[in-house]
């Protein structure tokens, strides 16, 4: 049976890589590898997952230097010829232990970017008319499938440089809500994403868009926010 040599990060912010040998299987995912290590070799290994099918956004890790969702990443796609893997926690987030990161700041930034729905209609009002082919509905649809896995955030150079930058996921969420005709807190949202750690801090390196496992383009969302904030400023609405 062929084996994989897997280096796994053990520790918190301080720590080191420990090597494990894992049997190679067909259609094996990175999450399968980590689970094998935890169940058979190292019961104290900390990692996080839930759905195993690319829906929950819990299992993202750094695999051979690149942030990925591990449940939908096949070993064959990343291990290379020698069958070596290096698995680390996501970058740009505090490490709780081993492969589990503290996602609180990541989600706090969604709140800071007003990345939550706020409508004013009640059950007594009529439905909002959303034309599916409208520019707004298309922009919303383009970014709505985010599962909050943190891959874009871990891949973002600007987040690495300045810890207060809201980051691609929160800004993408703000952009989808800005295009939601049912939401009525857009002036607050435009202000929230225009601060000195908001959308204007993006350098358009496009790592978020390249790495997003859901093929969302946060870069395009951030560009949309830049246009929206400039329009609002020129019209005196900010």
């Amino acid at each position, binding site marked *: 049976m062929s084996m994989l040599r897997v280096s796994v990060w053990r520790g918190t912010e301080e720590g080191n890589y420990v090597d494990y040998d894992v049997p190679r299987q067909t259609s094996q995912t990175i999450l399968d590898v980590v689970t094998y290590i935890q169940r058979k070799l190292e019961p104290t290994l900390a990692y996080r997952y839930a759905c195993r099918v690319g829906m929950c956004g819990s299992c993202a890790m750094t695999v051979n230097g690149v942030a990925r969702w591990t449940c939908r990443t096949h070993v064959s796609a990343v291990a290379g010829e020698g069958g070596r893997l290096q698995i680390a926690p996501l970058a740009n987030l505090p490490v709780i232990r081993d492969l589990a990161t503290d996602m609180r700041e990541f989600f706090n930034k969604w709140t800071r970017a007003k990345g939550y729905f706020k409508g004013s209609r009640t059950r007594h009002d009529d439905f909002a008319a959303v034309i599916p082919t409208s520019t707004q509905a298309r922009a919303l649809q383009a970014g709505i499938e985010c599962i909050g896995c943190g891959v874009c955030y871990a891949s973002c150079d*600007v987040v690495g*440089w*300045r810890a207060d930058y809201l980051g691609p996921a929160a800004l993408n969420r703000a952009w989808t809500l800005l295009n939601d005709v049912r939401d009525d807190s857009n002036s607050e949202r*435009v*202000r*929230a994403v*225009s*601060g*000195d750690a*908001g959308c*204007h*801090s993006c350098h358009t390196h496009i790592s978020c868009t390249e790495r997003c496992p859901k093929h969302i383009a946060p870069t395009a969302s951030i560009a949309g926010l*830049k246009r929206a*904030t*400039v329009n*609002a*400023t020129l019209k005196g609405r*900010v």
Partner: protein
Amino acid sequence: MTLHARRETRLWLAQRVSAAVLAICVIVHLITIIYATRGGLSAEEILARTRGSTGWLAFYVLFVLAVAVHVPIGLRTIAIEWLGWTGLTRDWLLAAFGVVLIVMGFSAAAAVFL
């Protein structure tokens, strides 16, 4: 927060507009340099063309102004990202640097115009 948002958005817009101006100015400037040197023009011949030329003066005044807007805003971002330096002292120093760029640029433009 509102003031913050407005200031950051305006700075970003100024950065982009000045970049667009610079993109054109730098190309014109480079083509002029290459044309002048490869064409074998002497310093006297170049000065003969620029002296009293309001067109060239206007071009270089615009160029200098675009630089004076673009550079301090760019340095401000570098100050935040590389040094974690924020605050009013930084902004005033960078504004002063912008003034220095204007003075140096205008004196250079005046030297070939007058």
